[in-house]
């Protein structure tokens, strides 16, 4: 499945916003019996900061490990944040 990150906002910066996005995503977007890979698509995201990423991406990676794939990560802050969180 593909999750379009831009649907949570174009500027993704604070921890409270990241946490809220994660809770909303787990409630409404993630099927409970998901077995397929998850693509996190950053197309359209203008700013991603590590605080937001740590609340949203870190728990997903913890739960799904290598099934998480990142696509459209060319934006400099997206790239820097993903490198930093790994």
């Amino acid at each position, binding site marked *: 499945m593909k999750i379009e990150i831009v649907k949570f906002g174009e500027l993704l*910066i604070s921890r*409270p916003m990241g946490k809220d996005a994660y809770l909303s995503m787990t409630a409404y977007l993630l099927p409970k019996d998901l077995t397929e890979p998850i693509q996190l698509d950053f197309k359209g995201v*203008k700013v991603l900061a*590590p*605080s937001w990423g740590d609340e949203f991406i870190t728990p997903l990676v913890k739960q799904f490990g290598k099934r998480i794939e990142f696509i459209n990560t060319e934006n*400099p802050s997206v790239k820097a944040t993903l490198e930093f969180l790994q």
Partner: protein
Amino acid sequence: MKVLDTCLQKAFRWLGLENGKEFLLPEEHCPARDVFQTRLDHVFNEMEKSSTPTSDYSLLTAVAGEIGNNSFDHNLGSWKDEIGIYFTYHLSEKFILIADRGQGVLSTLRRVRPELKTEAEAIRLAFTEQISGRAPERRGNGLKFAHRAICNKNWKLYFYSGNGMFIISKEILEVKGKQNIKGVLAILQYQT
């Protein structure tokens, strides 16, 4: 006089007052995180329209976001008087300034590292180790991220907390001075 000098003077005056309430203009003051986020969106949009290179403005916004949100993360319920931050910037002079009348870095980190004695020790630790005053929450990456971005882009961050002052570039350089502020002051200078 440059805009930066005027803003710096204002920040130092605010951070030296016994009571910091009703000193900042409404357009300089972000009393809540939401207001800061909205103004940061505005800065980003202005940078997008300006001559700031595309490769810089998304990272600049991310770094400013980390520093500004730190003020809200670590001072919730502990502001000295005025809640929120002083946030200003200038695209031609290429700086972003963020200040708060909060606890400062030493007071924040001493909760988890009681052996810390000085602001300088605490600031250096904050930029080099993953550590947060909000343990057991797993936080404490924001300033390391800022340092990495600053190194990669050859920017400079002047960072003050209490009586500590550092110039953060590729190195983390302590500067001895006589200033002693109530809270934290950060000035990010970027070259394009």
